């Protein structure tokens, strides 16, 4: 037995140079392909001359650098994580049994969400202490607000995509409807934020139902494309319906939210004076932070509760198999409509918040890319998982911001290097890489809401989704 294992080890060692040669060949091929892709797109940059004529600026160095980078990345990948490298580490292939883990009642979501909530509540205090002052922490609180907005949008879309399994590429339309509802109602009719908030949510939900009706009979990719078209139509209407929406210029000076009637200013009847505090513009920012936190928490609670109701179970059943659903007597029409409307409602609320926070809305904020980002958050988080959405939103939104602060990148790539320019480039790459690495998202186990005797969670790889 010992001899046998020795000989296999020796065999594995003997294969190492072979492995290196084949990996180099593969990497060389990848570099060659990269060269083909880069010529002429990277090698020659088109620039406008004074007279408007295009001239070509050669960039051989960049091309060579890209090809080398791909070569070494591929080589490293093949040697460290490639199929053969993994086979060398684990000589025998083992069959993995289907694991159904009996999870304790405290699953990742039930533990993770309260921790995340606690962290979020303490967050403004935390960054204030770290940065040594409320005003100094403004950047971090703003970042927190941004992340929480996307968490809320992610949770809202999660109802449609994650629970009901309806792929919606036009979710930003509801976000836009919420934002414009508040912007128009407050600037034209001077209605307060607290009245507008439910109205905006209701309007968005109504649009969700209106959109839902015609698209109900569509499935899968077709549904995705029609919702995309709907999102684009809303954006184009916002640009072109100038009398109401002020067109591409957008609506400016939208009234700010008040603290239940107390405005955030240094007047005698303002928030600061009422609570005998020294006036600071930061009060409003912190208030906005807790407002979006409350809205997001509301979304989470409502979703969790709905999942236990018949309608929530019907959503999940619909996601798994639409035909089985229909044969069991579930009304798929109302189920889909309710999912669309609920998702749209939270999108509208988030939109209202966006308008009141920015004080300015324009159609540019509601393009397809936003929809793609929100969808990416839901999918990367693991469809249907609430804590996954939080993690994904933090990574996707705060990650590129962090990139901006990394000083050493400037040292490598020169002073003119601006990482924010590459934000979307990296974003697109990350979407592809995430899909290949974990197509089911970060948190990908499925936990039933109803169970017999004990709760078992299974890997979602085993779940075959219907084509709903």
């Amino acid at each position, binding site marked *: 037995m010992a001899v046998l294992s020795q000989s296999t080890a020796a065999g594995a060692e003997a294969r190492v140079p072979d492995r290196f040669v084949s990996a180099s060949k593969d990497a060389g091929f990848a570099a060659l392909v990269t060269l083909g892709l880069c010529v002429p797109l990277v090698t020659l940059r088109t620039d406008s001359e004074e007279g408007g004529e295009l001239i070509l600026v050669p960039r051989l160095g960049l091309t060579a650098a890209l090809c080398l980078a791909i070569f070494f990345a591929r080589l490293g990948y093949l040697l460290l994580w490639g199929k053969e490298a993994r086979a060398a580490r684990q000589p025998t292939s083992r069959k993995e049994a289907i694991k159904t883990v009996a999870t304790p009642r405290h699953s990742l979501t039930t533990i993770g969400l309260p921790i995340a909530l606690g962290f979020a509540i303490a967050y403004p205090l935390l960054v204030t202490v770290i940065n040594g002052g409320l005003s100094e922490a403004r950047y971090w609180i703003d970042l927190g607000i941004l992340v929480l907005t996307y968490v809320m949008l992610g949770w809202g879309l999660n109802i449609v995509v994650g629970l009901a399994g309806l792929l919606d590429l036009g979710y930003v339309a509801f976000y836009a409807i919420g934002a414009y509802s508040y912007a128009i109602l407050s600037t034209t009719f001077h209605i307060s934020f607290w009245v507008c908030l439910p109205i905006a949510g209701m309007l968005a939900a109504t649009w969700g139902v209106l959109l839902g009706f015609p698209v109900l009979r569509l499935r899968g*990719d077709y549904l995705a494309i029609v919702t995309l078209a709907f999102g684009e139509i809303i954006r184009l209407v916002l640009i072109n319906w100038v009398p109401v929406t002020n067109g591409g210029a957008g609506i400016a000076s939208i009234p700010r939210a008040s603290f239940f009637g107390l405005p955030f200013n240094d007047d005698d009847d303002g928030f600061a004076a009422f609570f005998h505090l020294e006036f600071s513009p930061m009060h409003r920012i912190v208030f906005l932070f807790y407002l979006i936190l409350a809205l997001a928490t509301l979304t989470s609670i409502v979703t969790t509760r709905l999942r236990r109701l018949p309608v929530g179970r019907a959503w999940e059943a619909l996601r798994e198999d639409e*035909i089985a659903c229909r044969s069991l007597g579930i009304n798929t029409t109302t189920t889909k409509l309710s999912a669309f409307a609920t998702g749209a409602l939270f999108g509208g609320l988030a939109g209202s918040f966006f308008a009141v926070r920015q004080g300015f809305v324009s159609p540019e904020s509601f393009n397809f890319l936003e929809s793609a980002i929100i969808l990416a958050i839901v999918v990367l988080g693991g469809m249907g998982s609430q804590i996954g959405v939080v993690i994904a939103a933090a990574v996707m939104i705060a990650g590129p911001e962090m990139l901006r602060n990394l000083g050493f990148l400037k040292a490598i790539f020169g002073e003119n290097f601006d990482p924010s320019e590459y934000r979307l480039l990296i974003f697109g790459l990350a979407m592809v890489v995430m899909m290949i690495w974990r*197509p089911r998202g970060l948190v990908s186990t499925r936990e039933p809401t109803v169970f017999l005797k004990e709760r078992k969670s299974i890997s979602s790889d085993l779940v075959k989704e219907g084509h709903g």
Partner: protein
Amino acid sequence: MAVFIQQLINGLTLGAIYGLIAIGYTMVFGIIGMVNFAHGDLFMVSAFIALIVFVLLTSVLGIGSIALALLIVLVVGMLLTSLWGWAIERVAYRPLRGAFRLAPLISAIGVSIFLSNFVQVIQGARNKPTPPMIRDVIVLFESQGYTVALAYKQLMIMVVTAILLAAFWYVVQKTPLGRAQRACAQDQRMAALLGVDVDRTISLTFVMGAALAAVAGTMYLVYYGVVSFSDGFVPGVKAFTAAVLGGIGSLPGAVLGGIVIGLIETLWSAYFSIEYKDVAAFSILAITLIFLPQGLLGKPDVEKV
């Protein structure tokens, strides 16, 4: 009447470009049932490749003949864009074969975002104008002081589309490759059992789609004379609309759908409002999918349990 005929000519030209892009969508959807969301951006990339090669040929290498330069641009553009199409399929879609339903679509959205931003970073965000390549027009007739003209470039676009449609239709219907493609479209596992190299066939489908996108990109550049990094998305969605309208999986349907979309868009701009032309195109997409999901020339989709 004269205005109408002129708009008809313009609409046909635009429709031919949409049709060329739509063939790429329809072939890929037909064979692996996925919306290749990055196809529109591949079209934009090909327009950039055409632009660079054209400038290189005319102003650096000094080729005087526009026709020769365009021919070289077309061939080089098709080759390089095919390589892009092949590489994208290899890197972003092939590992996801057999993964769950939404994974390839999301990966494709990622590729789409990557491509447009890659071009923005690498070539700059500004519009890239080219000098007009073909200026001559054929004056068809004049009526009430309005001249109806068919530009040579419009004629070229229509002829190239017709030739390529015929060539690709021949490939799909009459060659072993086309037979393998149709077999994979029907049942991949069965095709593999019968000795069809499924991976290779799918790769070649992407290559063919990319080559046609390259032709469309070159034509777009010749026709409009300007291209920017964000020019892929809207033509992409419209071409997908065309593919759906014509019946997904059908090559003549894709071109027919493209022409219908092109005509509607042009006539809508001419007679109603130019601002809402995209709304019109998107609405047609929604209406077609809802009331005529199998399209004009497609086969109805049978629901299987």
